[in-house]
C-alpha cells in the first residue's frame, strides 16, 4: 500500500512536470535555440580555427561540430538543471513548493521525484536536439542513440541535484543571476564541452586540472563515449559520485531542522 502511494506520488510529480512542459512551448523552443545557435553559428565559425586530433572515442578526424555535440547535450542538461532550480525558487516564493512539502511523504523522496521529473524533461530536449543535429548531418552510430540514454539520465540527475542544492541556498528569484555567473558559466567553459583536455593543457595546466575534475566535464565525457557505443568508467564513477554528493547536500539543505530553510526566516 505504501509502495503504491510512493508510485502514485512520483507519477503525479513527473506527470505534472511533463504537462507543464507541454503547455509551455516557448520553454521547449528556447531550450533548443541555445545549443542550436552554438552548433550552427559558433561551431561552424570555429571549425577552421579549432582542429581536433584523433582521440577516443573518435577513431578518425572529426569536424568541430561533431566534437561539441555531446558538450551541447551537456549544456541542455545543465541549463535544464538550473531551470529546475529556478522553478524551485519560484515555487517556494509562490508557495506551491510548500504544498509539495506538506504532503505525507519523506522529503528526500519528494526531492528525488522532482529531480526525476526535471531530468525527464531534459532528456526529451536532448533527443529533440539530436534529431535536428541528425538533419544537419551530425550523425552518430544508430545504437549510440540508445546507449546515451542512461548517460543522459545520470548526467541530468547530477546537474539537477546541483540545481536542487543551489535552490536550497537561494532565497529570492533575483539571486539567480548569480547562479549564471558563478555556476553555469564556470562549469561550462572550464570543461571539455568545447575543447578537449589536451588542448586545454597546452594553454594552462591549472585550467586543465580544473576541467579534469569538473563534474560537468565528466558528464559530457560519459555522454560522448556513450554516443559512440563506448563506456567511460572514470566518467561514470565521477558523475555518480558527484550526483550522490549534490543530492545528499540538497536533502540536508531541505531538511526542516538542519537545512538552510530554517535560517532564512518566515513571514509574519
Amino acid at each position, binding site marked *: 500500500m505504501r509502495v*503504491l*502511494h*510512493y508510485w*502514485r*506520488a512520483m*507519477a*503525479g*510529480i513527473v*506527470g*505534472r512536470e511533463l*504537462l*507543464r512542459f507541454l*503547455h*509551455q512551448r516557448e520553454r521547449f523552443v528556447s531550450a533548443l535555440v541555445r545549443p542550436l545557435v552554438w552548433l550552427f553559428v559558433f561551431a561552424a565559425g570555429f571549425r577552421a580555427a579549432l582542429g581536433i586530433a584523433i582521440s577516443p572515442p573518435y577513431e578518425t578526424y572529426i569536424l568541430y561540430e561533431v566534437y561539441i555535440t555531446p558538450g551541447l547535450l551537456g549544456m541542455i542538461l545543465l541549463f535544464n538543471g538550473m531551470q529546475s532550480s529556478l522553478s524551485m525558487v519560484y515555487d517556494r516564493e*509562490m*508557495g*506551491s513548493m*510548500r*504544498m*509539495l*512539502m*506538506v*504532503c*505525507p*511523504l*519523506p522529503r528526500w523522496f519528494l526531492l528525488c521525484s522532482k529531480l526525476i521529473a526535471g531530468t525527464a524533461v531534459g532528456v526529451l530536449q536532448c533527443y529533440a536536439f539530436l534529431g535536428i543535429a541528425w538533419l544537419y548531418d551530425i550523425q552518430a552510430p544508430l545504437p549510440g542513440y540508445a546507449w546515451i540514454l542512461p548517460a543522459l539520465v545520470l548526467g541530468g540527475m547530477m546537474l539537477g541535484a546541483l540545481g536542487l542544492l543551489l535552490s536550497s541556498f537561494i532565497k529570492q528569484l533575483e539571486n539567480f543571476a548569480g547562479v549564471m555567473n558563478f555556476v553555469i558559466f564556470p562549469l561550462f567553459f572550464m570543461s571539455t564541452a568545447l575543447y578537449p583536455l589536451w588542448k586545454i593543457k597546452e594553454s594552462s595546466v591549472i585550467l586543465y586540472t580544473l576541467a579534469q575534475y569538473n563534474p560537468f566535464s565528466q558528464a559530457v565525457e560519459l555522454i560522448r563515449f556513450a554516443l559512440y557505443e563506448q563506456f567511460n568508467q572514470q566518467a561514470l564513477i565521477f558523475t555518480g559520485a558527484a550526483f550522490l554528493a549534490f543530492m545528499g547536500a540538497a536533502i540536508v539543505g531541505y531538511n*526542516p*531542522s538542519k537545512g538552510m*530553510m*530554517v*535560517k*532564512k*526566516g*518566515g*513571514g*509574519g
Partner: protein
Amino acid sequence: MTDIALHIENLSFAYGATKALDRVGFNVRCGECTILLGPNGAGKSTLFSLITRLYDAREGRIELCGFDIKRQSLKALANLGVVFQQTTLDPDLSVTQNLRYHAALHGMGRKAADLRIREELERLHMFERRGEKVRQLNGGHKRRVEIARALLHNPRLLLLDEPTVGLDVPSRQAIVEHVHDLVKQQNLAVLWATHLIDEIAGQDSLIVLHKGQVKAEGKLADVLQATGCSDAGQVFQKFTQGGGQP
C-alpha cells in the same frame, strides 16, 4: 479517538536572535473553528510553517491527531489539509489537473480521486469549471478550488492561512460560510489565521497571538466575558495596541 486535532505545547521558535514564537500552547478540537487572530508579524505564518513542518521547532511539541509532527511526521501530515495565504495552484493546468496532482501526492488512485474531485467541486459549485485553466479563474474561485484541494484526502484538520486576503466581500462571505458548514457537517477541526475581525462567528474559538505569545484563548463568549470586551474587535485592540494593524 481523541477529539483534539491539534495540540501545541510550549512551542518556541527563533530566526537567529529574533524570537518569533514564545512558549505558545493551545488545542484545536474536532467540530470547532478556531480563529487565530493576530496583526502582521505576530508569528502566525511561523506557527503555520511549524505545524506544516516546513521548519522543525527546537523547543516545544506539536501533535496532529495524536501524532508527533517530528517523530511521526508522515502520519501527522496525512491528517492535514492546508490553504496557504498565496495561491499555490498551477495556473497553466486545469482545475482537474491541479486536483489530480494533489490526490496523487496523497496516494489516491485515479478513480477514487475523480470521485472526490467531483464531490468537492460540486459542493463549492465549481464542477462546471473543472476543465478551465486556473489562470482563467478569478481570485474567489481559485480559493474555492484550493479549499476543495485541501479537503480531497479527507483530513481531520484544515489550516487556513488568511485565505480571504484580496477577495471581494461576497467571495469572502461565501468562503466563511462554507468553512463553517464543513465544521458542522464533517466534524472538521479548522485553524483559521486572519486579521479580519468580521470573519469570526459567534460559536468560534479564538486565539489572540501577538509578538509571538498567546494573549487570549478560548470560546469567543468566554474570552469576551474574561476580558470585559463587547466584541472580538475590542479584544484584538486590547491585546495588540501599538503592535500592528487589525
